[in-house]
């Protein structure tokens, strides 16, 4: 079983690596097709949003702290545009909210 794990890792690595490297190495000229260009422009924003919502709300102990994390994250991002501050603020608000919820629960 133990030796199999390396094979599992290898299989996962080969698939993941090909997915990421093939487009990057095969597409070496600027894409001129307007639709593809526009499509690729929107992809990152859509994927990241889809992965964040509703997952962030469900990631913590309660929906309340998850929602707070999202709201605080958006506000801090809006005013500071700082990646680290946003991530830190979201974590701290969840920690505090969960603490408060547990106190209120007694």
């Amino acid at each position, binding site marked *: 079983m133990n030796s199999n794990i390396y094979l599992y890792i290898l299989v996962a690595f080969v698939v993941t690596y090909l997915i990421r490297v093939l487009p990057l*190495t095969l597409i070496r000229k600027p894409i001129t097709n307007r639709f593809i260009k526009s499509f*690729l422009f929107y992809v990152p924003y859509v994927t990241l949003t*889809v992965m964040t919502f509703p997952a962030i709300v469900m990631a913590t102990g309660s929906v309340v702290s998850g929602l707070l994390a999202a709201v605080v*994250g958006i506000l801090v991002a809006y005013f500071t545009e700082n990646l680290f501050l946003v991530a830190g603020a979201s974590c701290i608000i969840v920690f505090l909210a969960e603490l408060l919820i547990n106190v209120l629960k007694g």
Partner: protein
Amino acid sequence: MKKREAKKEFTHGLKMGVPIGIGYFVVAFSLGINAKVAGFTTIQAGLASMLLMASAGEYALFTLVAAGASYVEIAVMELVANARYLLMSCALSQKLHPETKFFQRFFIGQSITDEMFGAAIGRDKFCTAVFYFGMMAVSIPGWTIGTMLGVAVGNILPANIVTALSVGLYGMFIAIVVPPSKKSRIVFCVVLVSAALSTLFAFAPLLSKLSEGIRTIILTIIISAGAALLFPVDDDGNIIAEKKKEVANEQ
């Protein structure tokens, strides 16, 4: 590129990599706990993290191995869990500096992750290979060491801290999406629609039965294609509808 310029780009990449690396360290830590449950040793989990650099992909790997899955199952699941990187890789191919060498693309490709991709896309004009290497120099060790520590000492951390840290990654995603939404009303609307449909898909009957990875792929393709048809982008990456309005306002 001149040597001094390259050094500046690399340092800039390192700086961008620090918050990403710290975030990775924390997330990888909880991932390491999963790896341990699946029977991975510290070394095996570290190797998996260094090679894969993928939270969803590794989570899938660890849970499937724990369930005694076949190699084919692993391969298919990795394909699904990481399919969004295919789209990101296409997008990044347009963003990389034209002087980027062929062999450099093989290294950059290994580390196309949501955050590093976001940082690369967020740069003005082009992203240089050296900048990307700077980010990798911090992020890969952060991710790998975090996983290994998670396997080794995962049970020590109090539960409330682990819970709080679990939203850090999402915070980073928000930080990438919000600034462009501020600048463009169309991007803002596309983001809003994405969040709404994603929530709908997560709770609607039948649709919610699809795995998270597949839902992400379907929504990304549908929404991005819709936005591309309605609001195409010009050669400089500006949304044409908004550019026209700006010109009209100036006149």
